[in-house]
């Protein structure tokens, strides 16, 4: 039984989140900054009447910032009661991933990703990283 996943890109690397967790995907035209929040919180956006905090994954993963472009997307994910947007470079694909393709992350990747990567999958020669949404939108900061 393959599960559908939304695939997005951050700084050339491909990541995946279960499609069931994704509420919607929107283009990004800027967020309202909230003073006093951690650097990886891009701010607030209003999507279909709902106000959603946005986590900038580049900032979260310690990557250099870029200006938003036409491809820039906010992937809105649901985690329990929380609804949070993930700011990514692009998000275009939905891929079916068979469970047997999913592996624990190689040690070096796990270490570098400070626990944000839960597992990896090889799909048709591509390497997809599964992010740990709970950690990514959690309060603990990158060590």
């Amino acid at each position, binding site marked *: 039984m393959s599960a559908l996943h939304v695939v997005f890109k951050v700084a050339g690397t491909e990541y995946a989140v279960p499609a069931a967790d994704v509420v919607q995907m929107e283009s990004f035209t800027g967020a309202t900054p*909230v003073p*006093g929040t951690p650097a990886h*919180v891009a701010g607030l956006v*209003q999507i279909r009447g709902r*106000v959603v905090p946005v986590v900038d994954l580049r900032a979260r993963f310690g990557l250099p910032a870029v200006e938003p472009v036409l491809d820039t997307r906010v992937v809105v994910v649901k985690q329990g009661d929380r609804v*949070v947007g993930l700011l990514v470079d692009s998000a275009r694909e939905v891929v079916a991933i068979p469970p047997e393709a999913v592996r624990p992350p190689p040690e070096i990747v796990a270490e570098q990703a400070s626990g944000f990567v839960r597992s990896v999958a090889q799909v048709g020669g591509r390497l997809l990283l599964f992010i740990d949404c709970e950690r990514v939108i959690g309060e603990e900061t990158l060590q």
Partner: protein
Amino acid sequence: MSRVDLREFVSGFLVEADELLRSASANLLAVDAAAKKGEASPRAVRELFRSLHTIKGLAAMVEVEPIVAIAHGMEAVLRAADRGGGRLSGAAIDELLAGAKAIEQRVRALAEGKAVPAPPARLLDALLSLASGGPARLPAKGTELDLPAAIDAKLTPSEREQLRAGVAKGMRALRVDFVPSPARAAEGVTITTVREQVAAVAEIVKVVPVSSPRSDEAPSGLKFTLLLVTASPDEAIAEAASAAPGGLFVIAEAPAAEAAAPSPDGLEDDAWTEEAGAAEARGGGVVRVPVERLDDAMEKLSALIVTRSRLARSIAALAAQGVDVRDLRQIEAEHRRQVRDLRTSILQLRMVSAKELLSPLPLIVRGLEAATGKPVKLSIDAGRGELDKAVADRIFPAIVHLVRNAVDHGIEPPAERVAKGKPPEGRLTITCFERSSTQLELRVSDDGAGIDREAVARRAGREVPATDAALLDLVTIPGLSTREEATRTSGRGVGMDVVKRITQDLGGELLLEAPPGGGTTFTLRVPLTVTIVDAFAFGCGAQVFVVPVSMVEEILEVDPAKAAQGPARRERTHRAALLQRRGEAVPLLRLDEVFALPRSAGAALKALVVRRNGEPFAFAVDRMMGQQEIVVRPLQDPLVKTTGVAGVTDLGDGKPTLVLDLLSLSGALGGKRPEATA
């Protein structure tokens, strides 16, 4: 009855039962208070009986047997009390309170869709023995009542007691006849209007319908005899009752020897008056509405307000393109007025009176008295203030907490009080008034031992606070308790931090007065509504913010040359200047510096002054952008919960705009105070 409708009945039952229980509690307390003074309270006992009777009937309809059983037991006790002239023993009052509580628990279980527990056997036994043991029938002493036999036969002992009690208080018991007729009905005079008018000048004990021979004066062959207790003159009563001359009789005026033996008639044959009472209640013009419907109306109004803001923006954009928008502007202005009126109406619908908000407190204090063994004299002055249901629901736990603390920690045990030369009974005063058109002030005040500053400081591991404001900051540190042992009523003494958080979340303020001589007063200032408020929009850095008008004391022009710059603390990015305002030195901070915003080109020329703990604080901003009504949406996600941000709003551009809480922000900046930073 068809079972299909049961669900619908249940929701109706829940609403009704809630209200009936509330009224029952109030009446029980009234009976309790009267009993302590040795007085009977026939009226309250009868009202209690009616409440329980209705609960029983409704519960039977929705087939909730445990509630039926408890209500039935309570009803039996009340019937006996009514026969005994409206007197209840302390033990009976306690059991009735326990009964009301047991019903309440079962109603709650029903509301939550849980199984309704069986009635406590001990309670049923106690009620049964109270009812069957019969009341200690008091010697029927009192005033002779001069009544026609036909009417006298219809009076219950408690009604007689009520008439006598009025006379004993120096009033007169009167009998006045009202004869209905088509002609009078055409003039708008009916038994209903007469009841209303008479009730304004007298206490109606009973209205008895009497059949009389048909005549020109009484074409329907029916008249009503009203039995009253009053201090008003005859003419006032005759006029209120639209009585014919000579239609007014004195039943009793001065205390006399012995009264007639009470008839065995109880409440059962009271059906007519009972129905009339119910009809009256319905005619009062009150509609019960579930809160969700009000919330829904509010939600729709909120959407309308956002659309309105968008409309205004579009018109401004058109005007900027050189389009003639005079007509549109006019329509927009009218639309704005209409939306405003609508908003006022809807907000009004959501308002509950402070009186209602505070009404459960006597019951709570009674429980605390019992638990602590400290007698408390509670006085409540609720005034005429009103507040939004949502605010009321959020602030109530804070008030309850302050009341608990006052009885538990503030007020001393009677012996200790007497030793200090105070009356043994502790005093607890709760007052409430509208401080302005947007703010309500609630004060909880006790005459107890006050707060031991040294003990608080020791517990917190800090120096002894010099001011009340500093003391408040200490007692609101999460988890701090000045009591060594946990007490049953206040738990572990935690909770002042919660009180503070509740007030702050509402955009309100918590104040403390604790003079060294003893006595403690907590003051809560809260906005009357939170969802839709008037706000100032202003620009700061490249960003637009809004702040509720209710939070801002004044908007000042800032002359940078006149603001005195103090020495800067090394670790701070922002530095406070001092403004002179009417002889008061006001610390002034640039908001863009506080928020670390990209600094705008021009100098900050306006300052918003707020006042916290009586201390003024000014925030300099770039420019004011006018006042408008906004819909505040709270920010719940932990990622974006920060001090100084109360929520977000949509000003019509489809983007979130931050609603600032400058009060909390000034608190966080106001020095080394222990402020939550989350």
